[in-house]
């Protein structure tokens, strides 16, 4: 904003800038800083006021320079752009003029209102989601910390472990506070009400690090150990009705008892928007096992610490971890490769959506520019039409400034009306847009029309008025008096060039948007044809977590679930039922180090694999192909323990180019081996963009009944009634486990759709913008040619009287249109070449510069442009030469 303001100083004429430019820029910058330090709204209104003043003064200075003007003696009269009263009068005149030509008013106001409305709507989303500071104290000093270890098997960036937290907390000189946290879904029970909800497990200092205070109760402290929890405002309202007696009560939270000590405010969301509960737990050095990575870390730096300095310090502090905490040789090697990754917390929380939102704001801004070009073109036509009137006004003494003001007032009147309409439009469309927005966009719930949006709309309307009124105003201010003597027809070449230039710009911009949405469309089509390795149709999935005294160990759990699977299979229309701990596209799996038997060369060599647990018939139900061996049977879960199924990639990673069947693997540090009985196809667990991860599947239980138990496995049910079977299953669940609610009920096709929501939303919005741009561009081409044909009526009549064929005349007009559209398309292609890479991570399977998309959309643009030129061409060729010659 400041740069824009300072940049506006360039509008002043060079002479003025040479004398005052530096001072003016310094004062503008100083004024902005002063207003910014007061408040955001002060800065906005100051910025807007200063911008308008700079544009106004610069224009005035160009009309009547103050520096070279002859020195008046004692009285100095305000010259140039006129007084406020002059403007008001001209506005009133223009308003009356608009009412007299309703067609003109409807087209121009409608076009601008639509464009300003969508821009304002999009701006309020960007403002609330991206520009608003995080609702924490001094958010600029908050950093998210991750790790990277190039050359290791770990993902490019990974969360840290408890040992990092202790080391940094005690030894860093650059940080003020640090917290570690994990997040996941787990059960909360309050009386009869049980549900799996999103909760976090932070260290007690999370709240002090973020600088957040509770609205009720207190924050956890180190001495609370693992006994307390803090609840969110949303949970307080929905589960406890906002009753303050909740403080001090103890509930079952995630397999433990915790006492509620505090309630956070409604603005506090961390790490996700939907986190409902924070189970604080202190980390102690005693008994800590290093190398359990994957937790989130947030740091509050001391004032003035740069991310670079912090990265250096955290990396070098980490190098001393093996000395202090021990750990395997593997761990020591990992730490050798370790580097800290420091990122402003804001980027970490908003990074994923910011690209899409900026792209969309850019797209609607382009639509606004195209709309302005269109309106400017229409206004130019009108100025041409009023040429005689202007000349007469000048002849009887109106100054150039007065004529320009009259014309600018007209575009201002249009823009003011459009701005008012746009606010209404944004007010109606914003909720629609928010409903269409993909889930998971942080802070989207805070978006609504507010004063900032309205100020922005007003600003956009004024800028639009200047943008589309400036050319016509310049044109109007210089009427050619000589032409008063002629019959007043004929447009000079120069003015046609202006109008052609506007159409070229429109065509180019529209093509850029078309190419962008074409690329997204192709990405979407590629993504929806990805084979995830499983079927996404006819599958219903759900979870429930029975809590019964009889379910004491893994054996009881497995037996309970196997019995329930039989009940489900008996439902009409159900062909197969499977169980898995993490349903694809809904939950991620665990990741851990594994050892393969026979890798004796290095007993410490481990392979990092994803793992989950599956019951019998899971692969059959999901249509996951069994490539070798067999899938789990009932016996694998009841008597024949110690078997495992692995994915193709896991087989490649563990035993490259060997037959994995019958070989054994185990989690690193574990003592029991599992034998591979089957190899299955790779599946896309998290979303369709990432390549498949190597995966190990274990049965629901191990030989030792206490080894592990699955608290709430996901059921997958194959049935043609996937969309409607939920109530029957819910009744069944209620029968066997009245205490356990059924939740996370989805169809696989819904989950597949959901995984593509962000791309679909971006694609649709960009598509609508591109369509608007195309329509406006076509209208622009048509308008110019229709006007040219009307202007050249006589000339064409003469040509035809001298023997020109109708076809020749049509070709002449279409060729003129083709030239303009062709130049526009070429420029558009050039701009697109430079800008499509901004789409970056939104694209899938399509390069940012995809020749076929570029060629196809450019061809479409030119084709539509030619079509738009053909209509005026036909009118030209139907001119009756006798008629026109008689008119001469």
């Amino acid at each position, binding site marked *: 904003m400041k740069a824009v303001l300072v940049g506006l*100083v360039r509008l002043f004429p060079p002479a003025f800038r040479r004398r*005052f430019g530096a001072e*003016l820029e310094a004062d*503008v910058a*100083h004024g902005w800083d002063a207003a910014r330090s007061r408040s955001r709204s002060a800065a906005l209104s100051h910025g807007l006021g200063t911008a308008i*003043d700079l544009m106004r003064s610069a224009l005035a200075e160009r009309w009547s320079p103050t520096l070279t003007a002859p*020195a008046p003696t004692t009285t100095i009269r*305000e010259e140039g752009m006129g007084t406020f009263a002059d403007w008001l009068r001209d506005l009133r005149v223009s308003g009356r003029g608009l009412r007299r030509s309703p067609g003109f008013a409807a087209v121009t106001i409608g076009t601008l209102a639509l464009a300003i409305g969508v821009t304002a709507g999009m701006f309020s989303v960007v403002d609330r989601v991206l520009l608003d500071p995080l609702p924490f104290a001094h958010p600029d000093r908050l950093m998210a910390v991750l790790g990277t270890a190039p050359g290791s098997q770990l993902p490019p960036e990974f969360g840290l472990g408890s040992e990092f937290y202790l080391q940094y907390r005690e030894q860093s000189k650059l940080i003020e506070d640090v917290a570690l946290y994990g997040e996941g879904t787990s059960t909360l029970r309050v009386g009869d009400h049980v549900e799996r909800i999103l909760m976090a497990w932070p260290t007690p200092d999370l709240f002090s690090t973020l600088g957040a205070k509770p609205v009720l109760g207190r924050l956890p402290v180190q001495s609370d150990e693992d006994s307390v929890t803090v609840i969110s405002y949303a949970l307080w309202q929905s589960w406890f009705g906002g009753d303050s007696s909740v403080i001090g009560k103890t509930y079952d939270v995630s397999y433990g008892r915790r006492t509620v000590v505090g309630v956070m405010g409604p603005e506090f969301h961390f790490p996700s928007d939907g986190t409902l509960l924070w189970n604080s737990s202190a980390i102690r050095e005693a008994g800590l096992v290093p190398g359990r990575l994957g937790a989130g870390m947030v740091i509050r730096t001391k004032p003035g610490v740069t991310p670079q300095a912090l990265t250096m310090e955290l990396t070098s502090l980490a190098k001393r971890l093996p000395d202090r905490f021990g750990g395997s040789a593997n761990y020591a090697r990992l730490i050798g490769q370790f580097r800290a990754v420091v990122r402003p917390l804001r980027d970490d929380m908003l990074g994923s959506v910011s690209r899409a939102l900026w792209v969309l704001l850019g797209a609607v801004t382009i639509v606004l520019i195209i709309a302005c070009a269109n309106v400017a073109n229409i206004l130019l036509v009108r100025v041409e039409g009023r040429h005689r009137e202007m000349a007469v006004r000048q002849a009887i003494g109106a100054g150039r400034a007065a004529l320009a003001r009259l014309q600018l007032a007209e575009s201002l009147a249009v823009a003011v009306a459009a701005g008012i309409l746009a606010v209404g439009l944004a007010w109606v469309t914003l909720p629609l847009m928010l409903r269409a927005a993909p889930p998971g966009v942080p802070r989207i719930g805070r978006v609504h029309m507010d004063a900032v949006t309205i100020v922005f709309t007003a600003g956009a309307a004024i800028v639009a008025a200047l943008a589309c009124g400036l050319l016509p105003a310049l044109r109007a201010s210089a009427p050619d008096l000589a032409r008063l003597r002629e019959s007043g027809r004929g447009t000079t070449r120069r003015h046609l060039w202006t109008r052609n230039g506007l159409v070229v710009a429109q065509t180019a911009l529209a093509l850029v948007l078309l190419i962008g949405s074409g690329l997204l469309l192709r990405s979407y089509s590629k993504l929806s044809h990805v084979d995830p390795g499983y079927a996404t149709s006819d599958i219903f999935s759900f979870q429930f977590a029975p809590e019964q005294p009889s379910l004491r160990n893994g054996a009881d759990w497995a037996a309970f679930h196997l019995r329930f699977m039989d009940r489900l299979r008996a439902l009409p229309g159900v062909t197969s039922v499977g169980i898995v701990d993490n349903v694809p596209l809904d939950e991620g799996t665990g990741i851990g180090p594994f050892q393969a038997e026979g890798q004796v060369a290095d007993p410490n060599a481990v392979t990092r694999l994803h793992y989950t647990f599956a019951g019998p018939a899971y692969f059959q139900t999901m249509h996951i192909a069994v490539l070798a061996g067999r899938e789990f049977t009932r016996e694998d879960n009841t008597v024949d323990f110690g078997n495992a199924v692995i994915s193709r990639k896991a087989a490649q990673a563990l035993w490259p180019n060997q037959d994995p069947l019958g070989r054994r693997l185990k989690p690193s540090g574990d003592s029991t081996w599992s034998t591979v009985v089957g190899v299955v196809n790779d599946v896309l667990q998290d979303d369709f963009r990432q390549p498949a991860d190597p995966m190990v599947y274990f049965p629901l239980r191990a030989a030792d009944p206490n080894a592990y138990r699955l608290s709430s496995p996901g059921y997958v049910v194959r049935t043609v009634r996937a969309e409607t079977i939920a109530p029957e299953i819910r009744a069944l669940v209620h029968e066997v486990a009245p205490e356990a609610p059924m939740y996370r009920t989805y169809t696989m096709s819904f989950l597949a759709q959901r995984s593509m929501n962000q791309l679909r939303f971006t694609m649709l919005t960009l598509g609508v913008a591109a369509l608007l741009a195309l329509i406006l561009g076509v209208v622009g081409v048509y308008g110019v040619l229709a006007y040219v044909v009307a202007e050249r009526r006589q000339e064409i009549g003469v040509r035809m009287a001298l023997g020109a064929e109708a076809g020749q005349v049509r070709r002449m007009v279409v060729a003129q249109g083709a030239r303009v559209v062709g130049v526009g398309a070429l420029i558009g292609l050039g701009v697109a070449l430079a800008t499509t890479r901004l789409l970056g991570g939104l694209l899938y399977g399509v390069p940012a510069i995809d020749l076929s998309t570029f060629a196809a959309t450019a061809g479409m643009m030119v084709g539509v442009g030619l079509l738009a030129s053909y209509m005026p061409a036909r009118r030209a060729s139907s001119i009756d030469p006798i008629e026109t010659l008689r008119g001469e």
Partner: protein
Amino acid sequence: MNLVEYHVLLALAGGPLYGYAIMSAVAEESAGTHTPRAGSLYRVLARLLTAGLVRETEPRTAVPAHPGLERRYYALTAAGRRALAAEAQRLKRTAAVAEKRLGVAPGH
């Protein structure tokens, strides 16, 4: 002379000032009724310079108000002082007439 010009001259009557300080002084002394933005202010200054009512001058103090930023200071010329005095007289007279017509007792 319009009121903004009057206020700019008035601000400079107290001694040389630089642009931003003039803006602040005008806003303060006009009790907020005139708050010229930077663009307008420099046009007014340019007019007053051209008219010979204001001239550029050396700053009073050796230490600049904003280190690292060169500020230009403006001061009244003799003609500017006269013009300000004349305008003040004129305003005083018109104020007296207004008070008389409105039936308000003059001050003191």
